[in-house]
C-alpha cells in the first residue's frame, strides 16, 4: 500500500476573475522509503503540487480538487487542526531558500526545539538537547555553539542542514523537498544531496524531490514524474527515464544537459519556443507547438496518460522510439 496516493489533484487559481489551472489532474504514488522526483520547468506546477499536498495554499480564490490519501485519510478533507497536527510530525518539508525560511530573530536551537515541543510535547531543555543531537546528525560542526546562533551567522550550507534537521526532527514518514539545493552552490549542493540520500535511506523516510535539475533526480530518485503545464507527461523508473526517455519533452530536456562524453564544439540542444506557446490541454497536447515529433493526432483532444512498463506512464501520441540513444 502506498504511503501517499495523490489522485487527480488539481489546483485552479482565480486571479482577477480569470481561472488559471496550475495543476491539472496530477496523480502519483509514493511508497514507504521511496524517493520520487517531480521534474519540470518553472511554472509547470511542481511547487503548487507540494503546497497543495501540505494544505498550505491560501484558501481564498483557489480551488483544490482531487484526493491526497495519506494513511487512508484525505489530507484535502482534514480539518485545519488535524492537518496542523500532521504537518511536521508525519510530513516534513524543506524549502528552497534556507535563509528566508528561518526566523531571523530567534536562535537556531529554539527553532529546532519548537517543532519538538509542538509535536512531541517535550519540555524546552529536553527539546534543546534533542536539537543538539539533530544538528550533529545533519553534520553541523560544533552544534552546542550553533544552537545559540542566529540564522544570519550560519553559512548557506549550514542553514539548509539546519532546515533538514528541523524537517526530520519528528522522524516524519514523508519528506517533501522543494528545490532544496537551488540557492546553494554546486559543492554544497552535492553535500546536501548526499546527506538527504543517507538520511532517507537510513530512516526509511519517503521523499518527494521537487526540482528542475535533472542531475539532482539522477542521483537521488527511484521514480521520476515529469510535469508539463500542470500534467504528468511521463513517469518512469530512474534508469528507464535516463536510459530511454519516451516523451519528446523529456527527451529534449535530457539532450539540453551539457555532457562531458560527447562532442564539445556544437551548440547545446534546445527546446524551441517557451511555455507561452502552449495550447490548452483540452485542445490537444500542450507541448505540441514546441514538439519536434508533432503530428495530427496531437491536436484535437486531450492526450491520455497511458501506462507503460514497470509502473511507468506516458502521455504522447508519437513517443520517441526506444532505440534512439540519448
Amino acid at each position, binding site marked *: 500500500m502506498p504511503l501517499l496516493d495523490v489522485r487527480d489533484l488539481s489546483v485552479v487559481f482565480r486571479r482577477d476573475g480569470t481561472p488559471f489551472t496550475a495543476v491539472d489532474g496530477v496523480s502519483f504514488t509514493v511508497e514507504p522509503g521511496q524517493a520520487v522526483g517531480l521534474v519540470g520547468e518553472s511554472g509547470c506546477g511542481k511547487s503548487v503540487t507540494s503546497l497543495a499536498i*501540505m494544505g*498550505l495554499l491560501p484558501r481564498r480564490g483557489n480551488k483544490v480538487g482531487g484526493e491526497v490519501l495519506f494513511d487512508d485519510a484525505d489530507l484535502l478533507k482534514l480539518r485545519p487542526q488535524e*492537518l*496542523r*497536527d*500532521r*504537518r*511536521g*510530525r508525519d510530513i*516534513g*518539508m524543506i*524549502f528552497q*531558500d534556507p535563509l*528566508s*525560511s*528561518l*526566523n*531571523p*530573530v*530567534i*536562535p537556531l536551537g529554539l527553532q529546532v526545539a*519548537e*517543532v519538538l515541543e*509542538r*509535536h512531541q510535547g517535550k519540555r524546552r531543555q529536553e527539546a534543546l538537547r534533542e536539537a543538539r543531537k539533530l544538528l550533529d546528525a545533519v553534520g553541523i560542526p560544533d552544534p552546542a*555553539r*550553533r544552537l*545559540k*546562533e*542566529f540564522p*544570519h*551567522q550560519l553559512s548557506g550550507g549550514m542553514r539548509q542542514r539546519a*532546515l533538514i534537521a*528541523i*524537517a526530520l526532527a519528528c522522524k516524519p514518514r514523508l519528506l517533501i523537498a522543494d528545490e532544496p539545493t537551488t540557492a546553494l552552490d554546486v559543492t554544497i549542493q552535492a553535500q546536501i544531496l548526499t546527506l538527504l540520500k543517507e538520511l532517507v535511506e537510513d530512516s526509511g523516510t519517503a521523499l518527494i524531490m521537487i526540482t528542475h535539475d535533472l542531475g539532482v533526480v539522477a542521483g537521488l530518485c527511484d521514480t521520476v514524474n515529469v510535469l508539463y503545464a500542470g500534467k504528468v507527461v511521463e513517469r518512469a523508473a530512474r534508469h528507464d527515464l535516463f536510459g530511454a526517455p519516451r516523451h519528446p519533452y523529456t527527451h529534449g530536456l535530457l539532450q539540453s544537459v551539457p555532457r562531458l562524453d560527447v562532442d564539445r564544439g556544437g551548440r547545446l540542444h534546445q527546446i524551441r519556443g517557451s511555455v507561452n506557446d502552449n495550447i490548452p490541454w483540452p485542445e490537444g497536447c500542450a507541448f505540441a507547438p514546441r514538439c519536434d515529433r508533432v503530428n495530427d493526432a496531437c491536436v484535437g483532444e486531450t492526450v491520455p496518460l497511458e501506462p507503460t512498463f514497470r509502473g511507468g506512464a506516458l502521455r504522447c501520441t508519437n513517443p520517441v522510439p526506444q532505440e534512439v540513444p540519448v
Partner: protein
Amino acid sequence: MNKLAEHKRQRIDELTARTAEGGGVSLFRDAGRRLLRNPTAIVGATIILLFLVIAIFAPLVAPHDPVQRFPELTKDLTVDTIPGPTAGHPFGSDPLGRDFMSRMIYGARQTMFVGVLATTIGLLLGVLLGGVAGAAGGWIDVVIMRFTDVMLALPSLLLAITLVALASQSTQWTVIMAVAIVNVPIFARLLRGSMLAQRESDHVLAARALGVKRRHIVTRHMLPNSLTAVIVQATLTFAVAILDAAALSFLGLGDPDINRAEWGLMLGVDGVRYFEVRPELAYFPALAIILVALGFTLLGEGMREALDPKNRR
C-alpha cells in the same frame, strides 16, 4: 622572517577569538552594541539621560520647593516687574514669587512622566489593534483599519482637543490619554503593515509547514520580526507626545492645577502672558522641551539605524 610568522600567528589568534565570542548575540543585544557606536544615538541618549537624572532626583537637585512663595521674591512683584536672578534664586522668580529654577527642574519630572506614559499607552493600544488586524486579517482587519483611517483623517492636535473636551473635567490624565490615543492609529498601521509582510514570508510558511500553532506563529514568528519599526516609532512619538501635551497646556486644556510645574503649562500660561516683562519665562521651558524632543529624535534615528537588519554582521 620570524617577525612575519609571529604577526601571522597573532592575527589568527585574534580572528579565532572574535569568531568564538560571536556566538549567541541576540538581535536586540547586537543592536544595542551598534547603538553604542552610533554618535547620533549617543548624543540623543546623553540628553535624555541628563534630563532623566534631573527628573528622578528633582528634590535633591532643586534648590527650593517648587510651590512655595518666597517673601523676598513677592515683595518686588508687580504687574510689570518680576524679579530676575538673585543669589538664592539663580533663574529669578515666576509671576507668583516661586523659585523659577526649582519649577524648571520639577517640570522635567512632570513633562517626562507625561511623555513616557502617553507614548507607552499609545504603543500598547496600537500594538494590540495592529497586531490583531495583521494576525487575523479578513473583516477584522478591515474594521480596525477603517477605524484608524477615521482617526488619522483628523489633525492630531484637533483630535486631542476633541478628546480632552469630551472629558467632563480636565486633569493630567485626560491629557495623557488624549495624547496616547492620538498616536494609537500610527502604531496600529505600522505594526499591521509589517505583520502582513511577515505573514507572506518564507519562514512563516515554513513554520506553517511544521504544523506550528497559529497562536505561536503570531507571537513567536510574526510579532518579534515586526516590532522594529514600532520601537523606532515609539522613540519619535516620545518627542511628539511631549510637544502635544505642551500644546494642550498652552491652549489652556491641560491640568488646571496652578501649582503643577509642567513645561508646556509654564510656557503656555506664564511665558506668553509675561513675555514682555520677563521673556526667560517662555525661553527656558521652550528650550527644555526642544532639547528633550531633540534627544528622543536623535535616539530614534540612531535606533532605526541600529535595528536595520542590513547593518547586522
